[in-house]
C-alpha cells in the first residue's frame, strides 16, 4: 500500500491520459460511424466492420483504465483516510467511473453485435461517457458558474473527440473504400463535421480559458496559463494541418491527393494526442484564476530570458547536497514546505541550492551545444553538398554519455550511491532508460541517414521518438502552488516542447508525404531549423 501511495500521482495521470485518449477514440468512432460512414451501400460494410472493431477495442480499453483509476483512488482513500469501501463508494469520482465503465461495456457489446441498427443506439452511451468525464472535470468543482462551465466542457471534449477521434477512423476507412468516388464522399462529409467541431472546440476553449485563466498576466505568470498557451499553439498547428487537408480535399482527385490526406491526418492525430495529454496534465494544475499571489512578472521573465554567455564550467560535485532526493524528503518532513498543497506520493519541492542551479545550467548548455551541432549538420546534410554531415545522429551518442554521467550526480558513477541502489529509485531508473533510448535513437537514425536501413517504418522511429520525448517536457513540472522558479522553468521548457513536437512531425511528413506534394520540401527544412532553435534555447536556459 505504501508503494501504491508513492506512485499514486504517476498512476493518476497515466489513467487520466488513457481515459481521455480512449474516450476520444470511442466517441469519435461512434460519431464517424453514424454521420460520416452512414452509407447503406453494401460495399461500405467493410469500412463499418473495421470501425466497429476499433470502437470495441477503444471502449474496452476505456473501461479498463477507468476501473484501474477507481481502484487506485479507492485504495488510497481507504488507506489514508481510514474509510470503508462503503464510505468511498458514494464519492463522485466512483459514480462517474462506474457510469463510464457501464457505458463503455455497452458500446463494446453493441459494436461486437455488429448490427447496423445498433449504430444510432451507441450515441446514448457515448453521451453518458462524455457526462462521466465532465463529472470529474474542473467545472464540477467550481464554486461559481458550475453548470454553464460543465456544458462548455462537454462541448469542448465532444468536439475534440469528433475531430481527432473521427480522423483516426477516416484513416481506417480510406484504404478500405471500394471506389474513389466513395472515398471523396467520405472525406467531404468528414470535412464538414471537422469544420463544425473545430469551431465549437475553439469557442468552448476560449470560454474555458477566459473562466480559468482570467487575465493576460495569468497566461505568462502561472503554470496553468503557460500550459494553456502551449495547448493553444499546438491547436494552431493542428488548424494549419487541418487547413492543408481541407484544401487537398477540395482539389481534383488522385492517388497523391489521398496519400497526402492520410499523411497529414497521421500528423494531426499525433499532435492531437499530444494536445489531449497536455489537457490531462492541465487537470493536475489549479486554475490560474485561483492563484492571485506570487505570479511571475514580465520584468522577472525578461531578466531570466535575456541572453547571457553559456556556463561551460561545472561546479564541483562536492558543492551539491549528498542525496538530492533524500534532501527533498527531509525538507518536507522538517515542515519547511508544509504549507504546500500536494498529491499523495509527491515529494516536497525544495528550493535548489546555487550549486545545483549551476550544475543544471551547465548540463543544459552543453546539451544545447550538442543539439545545435546536430541541427547544423542535419541542415548541411539536407543540402546534399556535404555527404559526411549525414553522420549527425552519432552526436546523440555524446548526448547519451553526457546524460548518463550528469543527470544524477549523487549516484554511480559520480556519486556515492552504488549502481544497483540507483535502479531502485524510479526517477534515476527513468534517466538511465532515457540514456539507453538516446543510444538506440542514435544508432537507428544513423543507419537510416547512411542508407543502412531501407524500411520505411524503421525511418519513422526517429520522428516518433522526438515528438514523444518533446511531449514529455509539457508535463515536466507541476507545482500546485505558484512557485515562481517552477513557473519560470516551465516558461523555458514549453517552447522547447513545441519545437520538438514540430521537429518530430515535420520529419515524419518529409518521410511520408508523396514526392508530388510541395509541402514535403518545406518540411525537409523545418525539422533541422527546429533542432537549431532548440539548441539555441538550451544554450540560454537559466535557473537564476
Amino acid at each position, binding site marked *: 500500500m505504501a508503494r501504491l501511495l508513492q506512485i*499514486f*500521482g*504517476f498512476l*493518476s*495521470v*497515466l489513467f*487520466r*491520459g488513457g481515459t481521455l485518449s480512449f474516450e476520444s477514440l470511442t466517441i469519435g468512432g461512434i460519431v464517424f460511424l453514424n454521420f460520416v460512414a452512414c452509407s447503406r451501400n453494401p460495399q461500405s460494410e467493410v469500412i463499418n466492420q473495421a470501425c466497429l472493431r476499433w470502437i470495441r477495442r477503444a471502449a474496452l480499453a476505456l473501461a479498463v483504465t477507468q476501473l484501474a483509476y477507481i481502484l487506485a*483512488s479507492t485504495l*488510497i*482513500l481507504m488507506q*489514508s*483516510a*481510514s*474509510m470503508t469501501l462503503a464510505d*468511498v463508494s458514494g*464519492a*463522485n*469520482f466512483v459514480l462517474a467511473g462506474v457510469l463510464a465503465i457501464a457505458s463503455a461495456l455497452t458500446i463494446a457489446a453493441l459494436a461486437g453485435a455488429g448490427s447496423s441498427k445498433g449504430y444510432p443506439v451507441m450515441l446514448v452511451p457515448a453521451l453518458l461517457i462524455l457526462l462521466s468525464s465532465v*463529472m*470529474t*472535470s*474542473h467545472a*464540477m*468543482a*467550481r*464554486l461559481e458558474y458550475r453548470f454553464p462551465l460543465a456544458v462548455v466542457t462537454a462541448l469542448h471534449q465532444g468536439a475534440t473527440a469528433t475531430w481527432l477521434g473521427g480522423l483516426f477512423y477516416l484513416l481506417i476507412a480510406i484504404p478500405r473504400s471500394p471506389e474513389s468516388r466513395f472515398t471523396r464522399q467520405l472525406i467531404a462529409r468528414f470535412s464538414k463535421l471537422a469544420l463544425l467541431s473545430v469551431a465549437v472546440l475553439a469557442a468552448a476553449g476560449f470560454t474555458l480559458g477566459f473562466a480559468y485563466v482570467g487575465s493576460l498576466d495569468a497566461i505568462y505568470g502561472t503554470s496553468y496559463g503557460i500550459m494553456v498557451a502551449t495547448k493553444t499553439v499546438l491547436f494552431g498547428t493542428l488548424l494549419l494541418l487541418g487547413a492543408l487537408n481541407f484544401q487537398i480535399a477540395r482539389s481534383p482527385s488522385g492517388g497523391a491527393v489521398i496519400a497526402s490526406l492520410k499523411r497529414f491526418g497521421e500528423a494531426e492525430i499525433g499532435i492531437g494526442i499530444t494536445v489531449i*495529454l497536455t489537457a*490531462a*496534465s492541465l*487537470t*493536475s*494544475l*489549479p486554475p490560474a484564476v*485561483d492563484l492571485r499571489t506570487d505570479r511571475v512578472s514580465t520584468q522577472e521573465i525578461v531578466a531570466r530570458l535575456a541572453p547571457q554567455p553559456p556556463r561551460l564550467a561545472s561546479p564541483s560535485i562536492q558543492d551539491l547536497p549528498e542525496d538530492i532526493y533524500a534532501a527533498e524528503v527531509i525538507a518536507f518532513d522538517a*515542515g519547511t514546505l*508544509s*504549507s*504546500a*498543497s*500536494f*498529491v*499523495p506520493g509527491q515529494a516536497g519541492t525544495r528550493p535548489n541550492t546555487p550549486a545545483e542551479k549551476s550544475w543544471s545550467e551547465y548540463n543544459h548548455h552543453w546539451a544545447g551545444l550538442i543539439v545545435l551541432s546536430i541541427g547544423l549538420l542535419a541542415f548541411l546534410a539536407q543540402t546534399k553538398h556535404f555527404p559526411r554531415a549525414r553522420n549527425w545522429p552519432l552526436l546523440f551518442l555524446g548526448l547519451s554519455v553526457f546524460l548518463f554521467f550528469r543527470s544524477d550526480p549523487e549516484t554511480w558513477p559520480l556519486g556515492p550511491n552504488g549502481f544497483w541502489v540507483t535502479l531502485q529509485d524510479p*526517477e534515476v531508473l*527513468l534517466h538511465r532508460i*532515457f540514456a539507453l*533510448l538516446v543510444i*538506440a535513437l542514435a544508432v537507428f537514425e544513423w543507419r537510416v541517414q547512411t542508407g543502412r536501413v531501407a524500411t520505411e*517504418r*524503421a525511418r519513422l*522511429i526517429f520522428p*516518433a*521518438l522526438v515528438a*514523444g*520525448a518533446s*511531449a514529455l517536457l509539457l*508535463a515536466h*513540472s*507541476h507545482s*500546485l502552488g505558484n512557485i515562481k522558479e517552477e513557473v519560470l522553468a516551465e516558461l523555458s521548457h514549453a517552447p522547447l516542447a513545441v519545437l520538438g513536437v514540430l521537429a518530430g512531425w515535420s520529419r515524419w511528413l518529409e518521410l511520408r508525404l508523396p514526392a508530388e506534394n510541395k509541402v514535403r520540401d518545406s518540411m525537409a527544412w523545418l525539422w533541422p531549423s527546429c533542432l537549431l532553435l532548440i539548441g539555441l534555447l538550451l544554450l540560454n536556459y537559466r535557473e537564476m
Partner: protein
Amino acid sequence: MRPIHRVVLVVCLFAVVAMFLAHSAMAHAILLESSPSINSIVAGPNIPIRLRFNVRIDATRSRLTLVKPDASTQSLAITKDGPLDALASQAQGLPPGEYRIRWQVLASDGHITRGEIPFQVTQP
C-alpha cells in the same frame, strides 16, 4: 518491419509515454487560507480551525489530523453543514507548544490533495 524493430519501437514509445506522465500529478484543490494561519502563534487552549480551498470539497471524505508536540496524532471531527469550499473543526485543551494540522481533501472532481499547517500555541 522486422519483429525486433517492432519490439524496439513499441518499447521506446511506451517508455517515452511513461516518462511523459511520470512527473505529473492530478489534483488541484489548494489551500487558499487557514485559521490558524501557517506559522502563526495563537493563544490556547481552545483553537477554532478553518481551512478554505479554491474548489468544492467532499467534506465527508476529507480528513483533519492534529499533530501534537510529542508527534502523537489526534483526528479532528469536521463540522457538518459548513461552506462548500471549507473544512472547519475545533481543537480543545491544547497546552502550549508546536503543532501541525495535517489535512487531506477529496475535491468534488475526485482528486485528492494533502498539506500541513504548522502553528504555535501559547498561554491564553
